[in-house]
């Protein structure tokens, strides 16, 4: 018995090669047809994301090339080198080859060093902040994350508080930013770890209690009027999947008007309820209402004196819906550690549900009679 060089019909190599080419063609077609485009990031909305997107395209091209080369070699080998009934002799017992082994160590090393270098370059753009470079950003926003809502505190150029956007998403909430301006964001959490993530910014950063993280971005000026969906990306508890926010891109003029309006609204003092209005007490702690049954008089305005005893980053409100689920009366959320006198318009006798619009588990029965 001896080892022998392979004697293979040429047709077999043709078949094997043909299958490899076919597979490459299928992969190519998938990309051309558009199904492959789902493997590319969504359209970049910031100048930083634009850089990441370019980097992604380079890495992706190299990845596809390596994938096709190695996968092609595997497919070729399994088609070409099947054992045949007349294969009694051993194939050549190749133990190795110093040259090819050196090559497939060195070439990948060069590739990964190249990838590292271009990644680092892009990182310098993505991680750039004005403050770190002795400059002043255009806008400063302090993001507060809490279970399970975002608040956006707008600061002036000295870092002083202007106003806080506490409204939940869907009730006028969201993070408004002017396009083309450097927006410097600080992040803090009062409870567990969250992550600020906007897919079209190709960016996320963890919001860690006890630490203030920061980053800077500039929205592409062509995106004025667009709204970008954002979401918490770090598991933060039961309501994690519902912790959404929007980033609303505005022209600088619109933004200035919006911010001025926010400051007016936030500083407005609510007119006190007429004296003698029936008043109910309600408090919330640990994302629970402390009472789940309230009784109010029928056909009369009433007030709920609401106290939020949770940490400052956790917001609540008390809204009312009827048995069909239709929301009848809304209120603005208040942060933990504060209280509000919510005023409600008269309700007909019946049974209603009061609930917190931030936390779906917080509900109670409001009996009106």
């Amino acid at each position, binding site marked *: 018995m001896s080892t022998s060089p392979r004697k293979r019909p040429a047709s077999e190599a043709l078949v094997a090669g043909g299958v490899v080419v076919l597979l490459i063609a299928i992969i190519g077609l998938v990309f051309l047809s558009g199904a492959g485009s789902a493997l590319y990031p969504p359209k970049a909305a910031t100048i930083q994301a634009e850089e990441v997107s370019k980097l992604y395209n380079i890495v992706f091209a190299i990845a596809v090339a390596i994938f096709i080369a190695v996968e092609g070699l595997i497919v070729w080998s*399994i088609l070409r080198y099947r054992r045949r009934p007349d294969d009694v002799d051993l194939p050549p*017992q190749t*133990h190795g080859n110093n040259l090819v*082994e050196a090559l497939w160590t060195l070439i990948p090393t060069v590739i990964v060093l190249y990838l590292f270098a271009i990644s680092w370059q892009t990182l310098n753009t993505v991680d750039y902040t004005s403050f770190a470079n002795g400059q002043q950003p255009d806008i400063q926003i302090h993001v507060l994350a809490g279970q399970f809502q975002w608040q956006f505190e707008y600061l002036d150029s000295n870092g002083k508080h202007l106003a806080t956007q506490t409204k939940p998403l869907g009730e006028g909430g969201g993070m408004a930013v002017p396009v083309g301006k450097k927006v410097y964001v600080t992040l803090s959490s009062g409870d567990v*770890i969250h992550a600020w993530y906007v897919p079209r910014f190709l*960016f996320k950063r963890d919001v860690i209690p006890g630490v203030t993280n920061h980053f800077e971005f500039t929205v592409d000026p062509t995106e004025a009027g667009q709204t970008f969906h954002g979401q918490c*990306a770090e598991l933060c508890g039961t309501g994690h999947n519902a912790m959404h926010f929007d980033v609303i891109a505005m022209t600088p003029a619109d933004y200035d008007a919006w911010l001025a309006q926010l400051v007016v609204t936030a500083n407005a003092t609510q007119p006190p309820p007429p004296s003698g209005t029936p008043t109910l007490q309600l408090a919330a702690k640990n994302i629970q209402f402390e009472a789940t049954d309230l009784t109010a008089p029928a056909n009369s305005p009433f007030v709920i004196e609401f106290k939020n005893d949770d940490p400052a980053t956790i917001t609540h409100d008390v809204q009312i819906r009827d048995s069909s689920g239709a929301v009848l009366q809304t209120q603005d959320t208040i942060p933990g550690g504060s209280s509000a006198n919510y005023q409600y318009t008269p309700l007909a006798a019946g049974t209603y549900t009061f609930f917190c619009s931030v936390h779906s588990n917080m509900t109670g029965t409001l009996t009106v009679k």
Partner: protein
Amino acid sequence: MATHALNPAAVPAYRGGLYEWLTTTDHKKIGIMYVINSFLFFLIGGIFALLVRTELAAPGIQLFTNEHVYNEAFSIHATVMIFLFIIPMLAGLGNFAVPLMIGAPDMAFPRINALSFWMLPLGGILLLLGFLTPGGAAAAGWTSYPPLSEKGALASPGPGQDLWIVALILIGTSSILGGINFLVTIFKMRAPGMTLFRMPIMVWTMLVTSVLVVMATPVITSALVMLFIDRNYGGSFFNPATGGTAVLYQNVFWFYSHPAVYVMVLPAMGIISEVLPVFSRKPLFGYKAFIFATAGIGALGFSVWAHHMFTTGAVFLPFFSLMTFLIAVPTGVKMFNWVFTLFRGQLTFSTPLIFAIGFLTMFLIGGINGAFSASVPIDFALQDTYWVVAHLHYVLFGGSVFGVFAGLYYWFPKMTGRMLDEGLGKIHFVLMFVGFNLTFFPMHMLGIQGMPRRIADYASDAGWNDWNLLATIGGFTIAASILPFLWNVFVTLRNGKIAGDDPWEGNTLEWATSSPPPPYNFDRLPEIRSERPLFDARHGHLGHGGHGRRGDADAVPALAEGQHDSQGPTA
């Protein structure tokens, strides 16, 4: 005839029945119990995966009563699959194979070996008992980052999280004991002639794995103990509200859990490095380079943990990015070694080889998509999205699990003396391969389009419906692929084809004894002059000299073909 006669009388014979299984210190029986126990947890973890995929098949909360139960389901899915399936399954296959492969009669510490095994079902039961406690099982993810895993009313108030901690400490202790046992066995109990550079690659990977386990597992145990103190004895290691540092836990956790990825994948690499040469009728291409690459991965593996933490803003990004990129080099070396083992071979497509090729093709994707996360700016987009879920499953399922099945099909004849059915094996592979790709490839799209992981629900207008439905269909296809495997095992054990000592024309010493081997493993051993002693015995000097550079030129046939008689008493 140059064989080493052994003295069977030095080792007690098996006792009967259940009593034997409950009290055994035999590495083969313990290995088989590891495999069975791990497989049961694979089924349990798989059921949780199906629950998760069912919930995500369409937008809205359908299956679970609330999001908290969903969080329990994916937390326990991952914990079970990692700590009670992949790690112990590979340790079990190693437990069965390593002493046989180095010509030893048993592990170095047989009773500690039994202890390591019995801690696993105990840990698993404790973990699952969480479902019976108020508040349910652990729901903070398998990573259990504090402060979410702390005791506060808004975090994880229930005892399920404590049971998770205790279970992981037990399982970790089992791993450490097993790791020490492997190290001593490999260093002290090799047969005459079995030098370190003649050891099968499987043994080398178990050696490096054991070093990782012994060095890294105590670190996570310390994190778990600290978390337990935080939760129960007023500690404040990790809770910022009381002066602790939340990110500290992540550093300590990943200092173990990144090397743990290699604990989960190196032995699977070892398995396919045994399977590919046998079914190609060629030696592994670049045996020594492969060993150095394995050691290199093990060493580099300790310097990349913070790539799980790029978005925390608390780690030095360029260093961990560079190290993560570099680890692709030894991994690539291995990939080329495997492919060039197939190249110009004579391939027999038995089920073990098919699963090994499944490993190659899928692990390749798991390696390539990992490079995206090594690039820090791209990782800022991908971290904690479904891209990461795709990546880790291409490594741990496409890699490790396909490797596990290659090993199960490969060693089943040695464990039981019977051959699994090839037809059912191929049905199993096709279903699993198709199902796997249907499940996990769309997760790349979901991740890059912005779907975060660990969410119980998503908006119906987010554009994620189709990919999620496809992934769920794939998940059930994977589940279906397990049925032919179970049926195969069942019918083979009742009425399977008798395997004989060496059904695959193996290269390594476990094929030089009966199937199943006697309690003391070997009556006699062939001469060991290379990493393929049985190949040498079968083919003489043909494997060496003239065709390559690394063979021992002085290798001589030890046993003429057909003469490797090792009919020890069977159990």
